[in-house]
């Protein structure tokens, strides 16, 4: 491309940089555009917005509407069609045991990500699972969850799920499938040559044993595993360091100093929910808290949630992290040769300061490498941990949790070779989509078609299913019997909450057709396996089984710590593996998408509409680049570019991310699906098209070229501009940002001035009102959000969406500013463009005492409850939207169209029966989960007591892995929330308006290393 042929089109980064520099790097800003504010940008803004876009101005053509609806369902468009279907209600003649209408039951089960289990409790109303919570007993959850877990309930009810067995595109039946497998099996050679299985990562002991049984039966059959964003580096790193693929378990609660080498351990990877809990437990600043505040260093290319939580963040190309790891290793005394191409971007002072900090915390420090990094970096991290004496303290090794740990990339390569050589008679793909997500150079789609018989089992009739002869719908985990191991090896039992909605069958059942157990149910397969494994027999086993089902896990199955010795010569072994590109070429890093993962969750409207951490875009991925790279190459957000890596090309929109490493492009995987369903097909760009087996994570020599076209992103926040122009009135813009929305200090300062977050006016204005205050004799609900704990993971947003039946609106409506989330994570930047500090601020309804929304509603649809909530009465609301205008926090959401899906029957089951499904023309907002408050009230009144502290847990609080959100009765001075609000860090947003919010914040306290000044 011609470099910067039209510099005016780019954001004026130089000016922005100069501006920030002039202000001592301490001002707040929201987006690059705001800082540079070129005329082009303003034009762009004007043009960006919906009115002028090519799409129909009123925003809903019929096709879009189809996509917009909650889980991709159809909505006919006529708004008056909110008439509910006529249904007969017949009472039970003989009611099922335990079921009391109106009272939910909770069952423990496990969900899996990349094969690793997280325990969950699933709320079930009259036999319908409606909400997923974390399982407090489960080590991988501790009661919390993440976005994927929260959103997986939508997959269960997704009308796009595959519903019937298909044979060559025609509807068939499970019995035909079993018969066909039986026939095919007889045609195989007795030893099963040419029979191949492809699964994703398997930690299920039952499935592992079934596989082993199968391979014993057919010794020449092959079992391949492939996970597009799996743990290959970690596995190979362990193999390099210790000679075998051991599993690493971290104890972040024991670590005073943590160094992350490109690891987003708070939001991805085995155990991340627990790790987030452990990490933020060390960010607690309660007066009584004895624990020492930890310090986190993060070096990463793309800003992640973990990076935003860091005390020191170093933006570094992913390839340069190898160099950083070597320097750190050398600093703590690990003998390692320096990198062949040393990076100029690593400040020596940083390395030496971090090295000293690590060395000063022997046994209480922790170094963790990210999945994008090479096996060698992982091995180095192990070596550093060993050198610092962290092993056994903050880092523990166990045997692998996988049934058969293999290098999955090689495993898939092996399969492709077999396919290409025509050696595969029958390929059974269980729960994978390699046609979409295999490395591009494997040409998997072509190779696949050389298998003589192709069988696919999966939740969706996806790209792979399309090319297979047989497709059998898989059962959702809420319909399945199974088991799976957690990050520490604890076995969780997967039990069904509901009979399969469609003709779904589990992997166990599919495999059973091969072993000749086709009659056996999933339940029998799992139970029989454990019966054969456990010493307990008969009655004792029965008790164990019942207990395990109740608890959701088999107690005592966590894998014991083992001691492993570091290979003396891993450095020389690893040298050949270490790759580092030329610093001048453009690096490309492939990462799983923070919202939809590797593409598995593409058809999930909740996740698609979830604003991604830091970038805040929805419904898209992008070619993410740093402001520096953008400036250098004349690119700007919204440029539609072609990306060329080797001989492969893809197109994508550019998005400038402050804090991104220079000379590096991040591409999130999972988008650009062609057969995902009504929601997932279409959005974004398929980054797998560039991903080679030689560079599954980091590629070098990317060429980027403008096409001249524009691409519009549906960003929740950063599309908004703050006009800065070096105008004389600039001071006012500063004032806009000095509204003290996020209050920050350092630990050092905090110790000196614990009340730094308090403002005089706040105290003064409290009694300034003409009206007498409300009296609360009983409960007065309140919430405290600890900004020091929040990791911006979005779990609360999806949990709220699930609990409160919040509709999905679609990309076009998001661009028109009509996203419906009741809680949002505001993101702010402070400091310079290249490495700003990032701040999260979750913002639900503040439930003001003097609520500006209440007195402007002409019909009294929003009123003050006797317990201090700002209640919404939906059927009274006529939709004047005055309340939204008058809400200074802008947390109210309006149904501009009929966003809720009243038409798709499968979605009826998913809805929380205690929360109204809102129809068109009605305002809605956070209710503090009033349905949960009322449930607790009923319980307590039945038992003739008051509601206990902690009895009501709001959906956001329950999901939050960082325990940042606490809800309770502020009339009770001993409640947890009262104690938090009594902390000196407590402050309320816009306190000078005298709204007196019930939701208050605990100010952020950073813990920087005084030796590093960035």
């Amino acid at each position, binding site marked *: 491309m011609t470099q910067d042929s039209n510099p005016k089109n780019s954001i004026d980064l130089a000016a922005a940089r100069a501006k920030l520099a002039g202000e001592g790097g301490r001002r707040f800003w*929201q987006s690059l555009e705001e800082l540079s504010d070129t005329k082009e940008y303003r034009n762009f*803004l004007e043009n960006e*917005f*919906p*009115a*002028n876009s090519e799409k129909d*101005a*009123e*925003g*809903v053509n019929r096709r879009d509407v189809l996509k917009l609806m909650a889980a991709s369902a159809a909505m006919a468009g006529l*708004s*008056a069609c909110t008439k509910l279907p006529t249904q007969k209600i017949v009472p039970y003649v003989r009611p099922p045991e335990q079921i009391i209408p109106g009272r939910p039951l909770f069952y423990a089960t496990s969900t899996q990500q990349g094969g690793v289990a997280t325990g969950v409790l699933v709320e079930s109303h009259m036999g319908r699972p409606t909400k997923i919570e974390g399982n407090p007993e489960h080590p991988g959850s501790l009661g919390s969850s993440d976005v994927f877990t929260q959103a997986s309930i939508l997959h269960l009810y997704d009308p796009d799920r595959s519903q019937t067995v298909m044979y060559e595109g025609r509807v068939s039946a499970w019995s035909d499938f079993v018969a066909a497998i039986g026939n095919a099996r007889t045609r195989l050679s007795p030893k099963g040559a040419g029979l191949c299985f492809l699964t994703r990562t398997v930690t299920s002991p039952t499935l592992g044993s079934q596989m082993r049984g199968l391979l014993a039966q057919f010794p020449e059959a092959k079992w391949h595993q492939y996970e597009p964003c799996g743990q290959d580096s970690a596995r190979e790193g362990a193999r390099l360091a210790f000679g075998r693929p051991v599993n690493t378990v971290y104890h972040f609660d024991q670590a005073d100093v943590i160094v992350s080498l490109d690891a987003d351990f708070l939001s991805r990877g085995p155990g991340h929910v627990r790790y987030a809990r452990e990490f933020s437990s060390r960010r607690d600043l309660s007066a009584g808290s004895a624990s020492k505040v930890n310090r986190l260093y993060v070096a990463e290319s793309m800003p992640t949630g973990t990076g935003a939580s860091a005390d020191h963040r170093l933006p570094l190309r992913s390839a340069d992290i190898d160099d950083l790891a070597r320097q750190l290793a050398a600093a703590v005394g690990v003998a390692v040769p320096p990198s062949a191409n040393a990076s100029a971007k690593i400040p020596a002072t940083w390395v030496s300061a971090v090295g000293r900090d690590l060395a000063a915390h022997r046994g209480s420090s922790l170094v963790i490498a990210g999945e994008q990094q090479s096996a060698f970096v992982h091995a180095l991290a192990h070596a550093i941990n060993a050198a610092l004496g962290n092993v056994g303290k903050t880092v523990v090794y166990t045997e692998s949790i996988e049934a058969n740990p293999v290098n999955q990339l090689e495993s898939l390569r092996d399969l492709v070779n077999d396919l290409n050589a025509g050696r595969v008679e029958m390929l059974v793909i269980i729960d994978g989509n390699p046609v979409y997500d295999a490395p591009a150079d494997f040409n998997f789609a072509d190779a696949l078609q050389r298998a003589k018989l192709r069988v696919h089992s999966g939740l969706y009739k996806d790209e792979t299913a399309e090319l297979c002869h047989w497709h059998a719908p898989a059962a959702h985990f809420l319909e399945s019997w199974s088991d799976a191991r957690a990050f520490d090896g604890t076995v969780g039992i997967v039990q069904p909450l509901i009979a399969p909605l469609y003709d779904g069958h589990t992997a166990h059942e599919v495999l059973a057709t091969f072993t000749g157990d086709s009659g056996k149910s999933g339940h029998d397969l799992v139970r029989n396996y454990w019966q054969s494994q456990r010493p307990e027999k008969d009655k004792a086993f029965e008790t164990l089984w019942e207990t395990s089902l109740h608890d959701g896990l088999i107690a005592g199955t966590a894998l014991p710590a083992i001691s492993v010795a570091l290979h003396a010569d891993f450095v020389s072994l690893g040298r050949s593996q270490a790759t580092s590109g030329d610093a001048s070429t453009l690096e490309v890093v492939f990462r799983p998408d923070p919202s939809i993962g590797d593409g598995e969750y593409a058809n999930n409207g909740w996740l698609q509409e979830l604003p991604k951490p830091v970038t805040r875009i929805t419904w898209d991925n992008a070619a993410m680049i740093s402001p520096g790279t953008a400036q250098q190459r004349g690119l700007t957000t919204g440029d539609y570019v072609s990306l060329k890596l080797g001989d492969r090309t893809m197109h994508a929109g550019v998005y400038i991310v402050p804090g991104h490493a220079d000379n590096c492009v991040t591409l999130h995987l999972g988008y650009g699906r062609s057969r995902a369903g009504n929601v997932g097909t279409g959005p974004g760009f398929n980054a797998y098209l560039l991903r080679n087996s030689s560079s599954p994570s980091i590629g070098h020599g990317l060429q980027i070229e403008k096409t001249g076209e524009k691409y519009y992103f549906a960003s929740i926040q950063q*599309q*908004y501009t703050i*006009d800065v122009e070096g*105008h004389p*009135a600039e001071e*006012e*813009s500063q*004032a*806009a*940002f000095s*509204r003290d929305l996020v209050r920050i200090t350092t630990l050092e300062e905090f110790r000196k001035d614990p009340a730094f977050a308090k403002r005089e006016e706040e105290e003064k204005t409290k009694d300034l009102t003409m009206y007498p205050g409300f009296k609360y004799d009983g409960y007065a609900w309140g919430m405290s959000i600890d900004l020091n704990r929040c990791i911006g993971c979005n779990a609360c947003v999806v949990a709220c969406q699930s609990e409160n039946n919040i509709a999905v609106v679609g990309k076009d*409506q998001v661009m*028109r*500013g*009509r996203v419906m989330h009741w809680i*949002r994570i*505001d*993101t*702010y930047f402070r400091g310079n463009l290249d490495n700003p500090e990032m701040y999260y601020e979750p*913002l639900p309804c503040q439930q003001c005492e003097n609520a500006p929304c209440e*007195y*402007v*509603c*002409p*019909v*009294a649809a929003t009123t003050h409850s006797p317990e201090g909530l700002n209640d919404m009465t939906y059927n*009274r*609301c*006529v*939709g*004047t*939207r*005055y309340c*939204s*205008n*008058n809400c*200074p926090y*802008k947390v*109210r*959401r*309006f149904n*501009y*169209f*009929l966003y809720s899906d009243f038409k798709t029957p499968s979605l009826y089951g998913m809805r929380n029966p205690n929360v109204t499904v809102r129809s*068109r*023309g*009605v*305002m809605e907002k956070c209710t503090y989960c009033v349905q949960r408050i009322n449930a607790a009230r009923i319980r307590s009144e039945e038992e003739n007591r008051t509601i206990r502290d902690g009895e009501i847990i709001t959906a956001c609080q329950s999901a939050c892995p960082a325990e940042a959100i606490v809800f309770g009765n502020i009339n009770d001075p001993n409640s947890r929330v009262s104690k938090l609000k009594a902390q000196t860090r407590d402050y309320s947003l816009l306190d000078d308006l005298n709204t007196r919010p019930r939701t208050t914040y605990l100010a952020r306290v950073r813990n920087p290393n005084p030796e590093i000044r960035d």
Partner: protein
Amino acid sequence: MDSEGSRNIAGVTEPEPIIGPGHTFETVTDKISSIVLRGGTTPGWVFGFLIAFSLLMLLNLVVTLLMIKGVGIWGIRVPTAWGFAIVNFVWWIGIGHAGTLISAILLLLHQKWRTSINRFAEAMTIFAVMCAGMFPLLHMGRPWLFFYLMPYPNPMWMWPQFRSPLVWDVFAVSTYFTVSLLFWFVGLIPDLATLRDRAKSKAAKIIYGMLSMGWRGSAVHWSRYETASLLLAGLATPLVVSVHTVVSFDFTIGIIPGWHTTIFPPYFVAGAIYSGFAMVLTLAIPIRKYYHLEDLVTMRHLETMAKVMLATGLIVAYGYAIEAFMAYYSGDANERYMMWNRIHGPYRGLYFMLIACNIVIPQSLWSRRVRRSIPMLFFVSLVVNTGMWLERFVIVVISLSRDFIPSSWAVYLPTKWDWATYLGTFGLFFTLFYLFIRFLPMISIVEVRSLVHETSEEKPHS
């Protein structure tokens, strides 16, 4: 025309006569009633009516679509949940104010010059209030439940929320409409009787006969008529002030910077009269020309209206100045930012247009030459109409688009349906107006006749 020049007797500039010379009772009646009874359906009228009617049908289309799909077809969003609908509501209702001012306050103040223009100014009021009244209904998320805003008996004993200015709006606007309609109709009765008496066709006789409610012109009738007019004028007078005051409360009661201002009520009322007179000029100038009414609606009328515009425009300018000053003087960061954002934000072009339209250009009315130049007056009246619309846009949209929490800031842009709704109300307005000038006497025959009576009495003395 000679009569339009001022006569200088003994060095004192006397006001020129309100109507042209040479009119008798007969000529006045004839001139005005013939437009209705004999002027007939002229091609020009048909042409204008068809355009207006097409726009009315556009309104019909938009409203249907709006009912089917929802207010999402407009550009409103978070944080700008009010957009064109409210801008247009305030604009239309402001326009209505001139009619009431002319018919009520000027009647009480015995300003004779009002007689030639009060009838169609009142009609304009009624039609403008009808256009205005549609918007609060249409902009609701669920317009079919509009009656929730009214205190009506219901089994839940549910009242509207009387603290909300929107409820005050309901009362203010409906009272305003009722009183204006009544006043207008009462004023029409003697004229309707005249039409009844002069009508040739049977249908016209019957319809005008029913509408004139048995008016015979007896002294008792006249006496009661005068009393009723005065009473209604007394009732309507406070409405001139109250309606726009209440409308301004929609904003001042809110806490949004740019809304929460005590200057709003007087400045809204002044703005309303400002835009109302601009609209009267916009309408009067072409009608006067087309129907050859130059000697009934004289240059003096136009000039007086221009002076009223100049005066109210200065009040509005003062309002803007105070708004800016208070934003600065309050020291409040949000208020200051609001003002800064108007001048520097994404909508700054509109703000400067507003200043140009409402403050700068109307200053030309200081010049007598401009006040007496029909094209210039027409131009200025259009400019003021635009400016007053922009003022409401600035207040409603710019204030909302950037309020307290920067993460929610966004740019509001209207969609094509926003424009269609706005244009559609023009359709409604002009359709009604065309029907009015076709079927009702657009100038009060009775009052102009009384004017003739007075001027002819004065003549011998002069």
